[in-house]
């Protein structure tokens, strides 16, 4: 019995289809090091430490085309390459496990069910950048993941995969499991580093980028859990194998967290470029819309990505295809809602979240998200005024691109797309002082 009852598609994983992250996530013993080693675990780290230079590891990951799975999609190998050569300062690696974007719950399943895969990926990345102390920053609510990662770390030390002179290869590596305090902003890498330094979790102005000046003003690489978990597979099976999956610009596989009004919400690992429609309707994945109602819209990449309308869902799940329809792959959190969902209600939920999570450093985001929540709230509660839609658009325009970190953009992009796609419904809400669609969702 697993701590989290989430559905996965582990049974579908095979060598033939290239899926790999979820191979053992339904194996109730996989979190134990004996089982992980039995399944070939830590062979990639051994290979790296005993037969590859750090540069060769970075090159291999660059060649694989692996891109960051936390939301930004930045090429992982290229990021590692930004660490200055010849610097005498310590270098740090930080695995970003502050999974907090509404809709996203994929890293949690990896940490809970295959924690050693995360540690092995982290250790390989650490070696590649010349780091001797690595961190995993886990959101404080995930007590079970924290316990699992702590236990796995202790096992890895005991079996010589961490610590001094690993495999006799002359490489030392220590690890710290760090826990957060319940702040979405700390998933943004510079806020995460401030938080890790014991400061308030507020983002930093870039440049300098963390790869040059990050934790304790030293070169630091921050990578997402899922990104790092893919690294041992790339080392074991090669960059060419990884590149053979997906498309040229979106290589490999991706875990999608499918939630909302679908029959089978769950975490599904699929090859990049998988059809969104199939993810929602195929009985092996989402199984269709709850109550066989009509689809109204989809948020394809987490609460910060622009909406798709039903005529747009014939899209492939990869970075470039979603960009082509004006949205983003983000963290891979697909949130589905059916015809009886009021768009104003959805947006009020989202803006409440972003207003609450704004760190307060930049005025446009701090003040703007509060104004937006106020205006959208009054529309939802039947007190909207003529001109409110235009005011929402103006405020959004004054936040977008004017903040230090992407939280401001994240807050307004879904709103802008919702106003664009469902403008009539917003008008209706203001004029008739109520929802066009019923919005009370029952709870079984």
């Amino acid at each position, binding site marked *: 019995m697993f*701590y*989290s*009852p*989430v*559905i996965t598609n582990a049974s579908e994983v095979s060598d033939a289809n290239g899926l790999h992250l979820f191979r053992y996530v339904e194996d109730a013993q996989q979190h134990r090091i004996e089982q992980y080693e039995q399944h070939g675990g830590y062979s990639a780290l051994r290979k790296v430490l005993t037969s590859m230079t750090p540069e060769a590891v970075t090159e291999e990951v660059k060649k694989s085309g692996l891109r960051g799975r936390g939301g930004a999609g930045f090429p992982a190998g290229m990021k590692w390459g930004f660490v200055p050569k010849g610097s005498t300062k*310590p270098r740090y690696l930080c695995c970003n496990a502050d*999974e*907090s*974007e*509404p*809709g*996203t*719950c994929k890293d*949690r399943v990896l940490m809970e069910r295959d924690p050693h895969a995360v540690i092995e990926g982290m250790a390989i990345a650490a070696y590649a950048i010349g780091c001797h*102390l690595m961190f995993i920053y886990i*959101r*404080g*609510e*995930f*007590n*079970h993941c924290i316990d699992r990662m702590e236990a796995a770390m202790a096992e890895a030390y005991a079996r010589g995969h961490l610590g001094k002179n690993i495999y006799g290869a002359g490489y030392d590596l220590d690890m*710290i499991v*760090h*826990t*957060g*305090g*319940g*702040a*979405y902003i700390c998933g943004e890498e510079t806020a995460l580093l401030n*938080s*890790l*330094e*014991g400061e*308030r*979790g507020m983002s930093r102005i870039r440049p300098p980028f963390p790869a040059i000046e990050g934790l*304790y003003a030293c070169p630091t690489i921050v990578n997402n859990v899922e990104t790092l978990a893919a690294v041992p597979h790339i080392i074991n099976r090669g960059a060419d194998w990884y590149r053979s999956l997906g498309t040229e610009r979106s290589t490999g596989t991706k875990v999608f*967290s*499918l*939630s*909302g*009004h679908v029959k089978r*919400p*769950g*975490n599904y690992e699929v090859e990049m470029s998988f059809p969104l429609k199939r993810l929602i309707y195929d009985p092996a994945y989402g199984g269709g819309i709850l109550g066989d109602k009509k689809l109204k819209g989809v*948020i394809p990449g987490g*609460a910060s990505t622009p909406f798709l309308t039903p005529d747009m869902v014939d899209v492939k799940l990869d970075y470039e295809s979603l960009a082509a329809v004006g949205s983003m792959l983000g963290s891979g*959190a697909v*949130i589905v*809602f059916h015809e009886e*969902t009021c768009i104003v209600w959805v947006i009020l*939920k*989202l803006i409440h*979240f972003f207003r*609450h999570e704004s*760190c307060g450093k930049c005025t446009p985001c701090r003040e703007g998200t509060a104004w937006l929540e106020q205006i959208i709230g009054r529309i939802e509660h039947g007190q909207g005024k003529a001109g409110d839609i235009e005011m929402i658009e103006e405020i959004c325009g004054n936040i977008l691109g004017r903040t230090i970190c992407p939280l401001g953009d994240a807050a307004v992009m879904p709103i802008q797309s919702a106003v664009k796609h469902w403008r009539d419904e917003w008008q209706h809400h203001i004029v008739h002082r109520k929802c066009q669609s019923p919005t*009370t*969702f*029952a*709870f*079984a």
Partner: protein
Amino acid sequence: MILSQDSIRQIREKAARYPHAKSAILPALTIACRQVGHLNDDIYEEVAQVINVPFVEIAEAASFYTLFPKQPVGKYLIQVCHNISCALLGADALVEYLEQKLGIKKGETSADNLFTLITVECLGSCCTAPAMQINQDFYENLTREKVDHILDELRVRV
């Protein structure tokens, strides 16, 4: 002293691993909050002494992070996720149901000091919605029947 010897030992062990003492603030507050249930100035003062970081730096950081209640709460802190994925599957109705069952409103603590009910931002249980966290534990795929059972169990545990 509010902090137990065990909490102090845990905080010291954790702090010793960091290159800079200040980095131990969040882990130390986490340990303190697990013991006490909430945080306040007296606790910051004690944490400051244990990890040798000025009081003001502890208080400054602590006030930013919502995970730590700053006022006493009931024995069981019920945190219901009310964000989009949970809301689409009835989180608002779940909050109302809990309010009814506990006889308190959101933000309140029951008269017997057993339960405090609050809503929180996304818990990362989006594919197992609706969900809530009670103290350290997650409860997911919630139904009325499950909620009844969970509350009964917690009452018996007292």
